[in-house]
């Protein structure tokens, strides 16, 4: 019974058959070059293993973390490598996976052949199993050499230990520890006589699959790579439509949204329990979940106007979040649909518990952090670090009777020229959110003073989160930044380096389509620039020589 064996199993055999053998014609053109490598993230790794070997395989261990670059963790995957301590983690995780894949319970489902004798080596069965595992894990067929050495390992261990599956286990372990699995290798071929370079079909399949499904290519996508279908525009469009029609698109976008809104950081936030006794892990998890539900519902299920994320009053509340929102929870299920009233002063993502608590201090709100986050995350306008050698306490002296509230203290920045250039961009935004405390609950007073949430930004005056939401919704940088980040997320590039030349075409589609996200996803994934890469360095060097 191999029904659940999603990629390998019998169907992967079909892919291999379609290619006329086990060996990849990797360098038929002789021109293929490695154009980049992206380290698999923890989420990608987990989904990949689940989709290849089934959900019953547990993945447990320590992963190397990514680093956020220009707003995205994904952008660091093209720069990071694997440390000794990180590889130790991957080796352990891989070994535990391999042991589970070949154990007696899973074997009938996961190993595609039965050895002639369970206590001896069987090269043919090992080769069949390993070529299928290899295709799934390396996202391309193994080369003859790669397969040969692993079959040899499997045979030797099987003979030495008198156990075929033991041999298979360690050979599979070697696939899972390989850089060809742990990194998504992106290979490119020249087009237009070498004027530009584009990804070859297997690398295209991989880029598409991790963007749209947050996981490894499935059988049909690998087959489309093998047949050359993915080398054509029509072939790409057909596969993109197929991937987008799947419910798994939500998993893909969930990963992107989490990176985009930095929701991964929620788990690391500490709140001071003596000041905020209502805040706990259930709130942190619930808050992330709420935001994701709103994002997926509005953008994918309702296919609504993306910009409404700044203004919508519709949300979902669970039992942990209800007391912080001050909403009675009377609902049978886990997540209660809720629409705030106009008087509640809430406005879209800006006033979710997730975002308000993320960009605050443990025991107090932070107008500057909130303002910087809005400008940086939603507008792609990173604010530089404050200059060195500034004595902040001069403008933060709470004992000064003129500087009692945060607003008064921050206003002092405006009089300092070096501070003003940046603080004038961030602080008005953050001050308009001051009605919400460090965990996102409403408050009328700060330090005993009535809160003034009015602000002026770029000549526009507004009041509170509702006013801010309207201003941001109508700012063209908001959808533009989102489109750039989606592209950078998908390609592993740096958002700031995604220029109009690259984004204009799919941004225009997004605008003309009424800011509907599915249209943007399709436009990004089918654009030629999504697969375009700079000429590999070795080629640039040889061009210079000639």
């Amino acid at each position, binding site marked *: 019974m191999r029904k659940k064996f999603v990629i390998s199993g019998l169907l992967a055999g079909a892919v291999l058959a379609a290619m006329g053998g086990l060996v990849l014609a990797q360098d038929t053109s002789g021109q293929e070059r490695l154009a980049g490598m992206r380290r698999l993230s923890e989420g990608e790794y987990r989904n990949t293993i689940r989709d290849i070997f089934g959900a019953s395989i547990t993945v447990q261990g320590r992963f190397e973390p990514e680093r956020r670059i220009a707003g995205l963790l994904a952008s660091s995957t093209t720069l990071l490598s*694997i*440390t000794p*301590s990180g590889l130790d983690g991957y080796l352990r995780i891989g070994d535990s996976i391999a042991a589970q894949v070949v154990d007696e319970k899973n074997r009938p489902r996961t190993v595609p052949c039965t050895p002639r004798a369970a206590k001896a080596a069987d090269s043919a069965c090992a080769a069949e199993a390993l070529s299928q595992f290899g295709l799934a894990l390396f996202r391309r067929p193994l080369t003859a050499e790669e397969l040969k050495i692993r079959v040899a390992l499997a045979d030797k261990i099987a003979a030495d230990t008198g156990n075929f599956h033991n041999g298979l286990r*360690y050979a599979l372990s070697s696939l899972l520890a390989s850089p060809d699995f742990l990194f998504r290798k992106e290979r490119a071929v020249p087009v237009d006589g070498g004027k530009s370079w584009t990804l070859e079909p297997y690398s295209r399949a991989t880029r598409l699959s991790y963007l749209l499904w947050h996981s490894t290519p499935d059988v049909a996508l690998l087959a489309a790579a093998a047949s050359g279908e993915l080398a054509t525009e029509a072939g790409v469009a057909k596969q993109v439509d197929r991937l987008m029609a799947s419910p798994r698109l939500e998993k893909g976008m969930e990963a992107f949204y989490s990176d985009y809104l930095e929701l991964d950081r929620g788990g690391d936030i*500490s709140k001071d329990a003596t000041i905020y006794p209502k805040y706990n892990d259930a709130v942190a998890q619930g808050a992330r979940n709420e935001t994701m539900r709103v994002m997926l519902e509005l953008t994918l299920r309702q296919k609504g106007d993306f910009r409404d994320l700044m203004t919508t009053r519709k949300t979902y509340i669970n039992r942990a979040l209800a007391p912080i929102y001050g909403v009675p929870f009377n609902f049978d299920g886990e997540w209660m649909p809720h629409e705030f009233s106009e008087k509640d002063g809430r406005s879209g993502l800006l006033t979710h518990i997730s975002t308000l608590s993320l960009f605050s*201090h443990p025991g107090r709100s932070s107008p500057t952090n909130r303002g910087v986050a809005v400008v940086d995350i939603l507008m792609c306008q990173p604010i530089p670090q404050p200059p060195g050698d500034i004595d902040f306490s001069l403008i933060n002296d709470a004992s000064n009777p003129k500087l009692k509230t945060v607003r008064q203290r921050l206003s002092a920045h405006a009089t300092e020229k070096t501070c003003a250039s940046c603080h004038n961009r961030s602080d008005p935004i953050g001050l308009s959110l001051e009605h919400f405390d460090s965990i996102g609950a409403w408050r009328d007073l700060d330090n005993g003073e009535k809160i003034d949430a009015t602000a002026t930004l770029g000549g526009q005056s507004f009041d509170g989160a509702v006013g801010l939401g309207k201003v941001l919704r109508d700012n063209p940088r908001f959808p533009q930044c989102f489109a750039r980040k989606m592209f950078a997320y998908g390609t592993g590039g740096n958002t700031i380096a995604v220029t109009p030349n690259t984004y204009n075409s799919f941004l225009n589609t997004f605008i003309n389509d009424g800011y509907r996200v599915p249209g943007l996803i399709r436009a990004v994934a089918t654009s030629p620039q999504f697969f375009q890469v700079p000429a590999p360095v070795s080629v640039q060097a040889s061009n210079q020589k000639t």
Partner: protein
Amino acid sequence: MSLSRRFLLRGMTHSSLAVMSLPFLDCFLNENGTALAATGKPIPTRFGTYFWGCGLTKALFMPASVGANYQDTPQLASLKPFKGKMNLLTGFRAFVDEKPNIQHWSGNAAIATGNAPANDREFAGETLDMTIAGAIAKGSRYKSIEVACSGNRNESFSSLGGRNTNPPEVSPIGLYNRLFGAGFQDPSNADWKPDPHVMLQQSVLSVVTEDRQKLMASVGAADKARLEQYFTSVRELEQGLAAELSRPEMIADVKIPASPEEMIVNKAVPNLLKVTPIMARLLAIGLATNQTRVFNMSFCEPASTMYQPGDSYPFHQATHEEPVDEALGYQPITSKFSEYCMQGLASVLAELDGIREGDGTLLDHSLLLAYTDTSNAKLHAIDGIPMVLAGGANGKIKTGLHVAGGGTTVSRVGLTVQQAMGFLLDSWGTQSNQTNRPISEIVI
């Protein structure tokens, strides 16, 4: 079908296993020839770092005099029991030359690499601990162990260069499992024998390295460096596995403890002060049983957001926003946080000093560099970053002194450390941080 020579030489069965202890390197021996009570072998020198954020309060920690018998100061009160076993290093400066002073980064990165970084959260080279581990890790199970007491997965200052840092253990249980969980066999067990699984894992890594040359061809420089780092990691893991094939050296008379209980690990001061000694004890036992010879512990990150429950000012925020109390002459809340950082350090020293081995303690046979990102965090100043160098390094370092650097480069500390660890090195650092002057006052 042919396998490489290397692959076959390994052998993979029980029967072909040769149990062999790896000798300690001569250069890391105690000159006095102190021997292990149990085995008669010399005691190796271990190295550790302790990082804390946001510096110290000059008015509260700086002794008025230098040399021996320097004055006790309030912020260093918790370190008093170890005064004779440590040196206080003040007045050393991190130079950035044409590069910017990257706030809460340039100072500590320069101390760790001898080289001012060009970009935030990037190291301009390998960190000191990795260089040292590269030379002394042979024969131990792990090249190094990293620990973040605040539970932050990104909090590690150990790197082979660039943005990559060695991921830390972020809970006592995680650290326990790494050191004494699956794959660890108590060396005091009478029937200790190597785990055949280790040899099979060696053969797995062997296969992985087979493709190395093919992978290295036609790769751009940046990706080539990343692949090199990957293969360096493979080699180091191979060394670790090789070490697992022989019974770990029981350097001291320690018992392997039971697994610690589940506890909250976060940035609240009471939790930090509870978790740190537990992490330190596990590390100390890990050193004593030769699971590793190098560790890196972070108490709190640069620009630390640690907080005291009930007080709305987190540490970093306080350094910048809290006014200097005119009567006291310093920032009271900020300076309290710095005191906690020193309490954390004291608890690490206590654990190292609490394990007896040979004629002294684990601390006597170790060298621990405690350092931070700034001197006066309020101004992001990187001249006069305070450091503590603890432990006698097996008789290579004279202790009990306060040394003032007089504005000379922080690299002098790194150079001294490496020389004490046995490196034949006469110069370290780049540009203005380059130096050939070790801290002669403390070198024996």
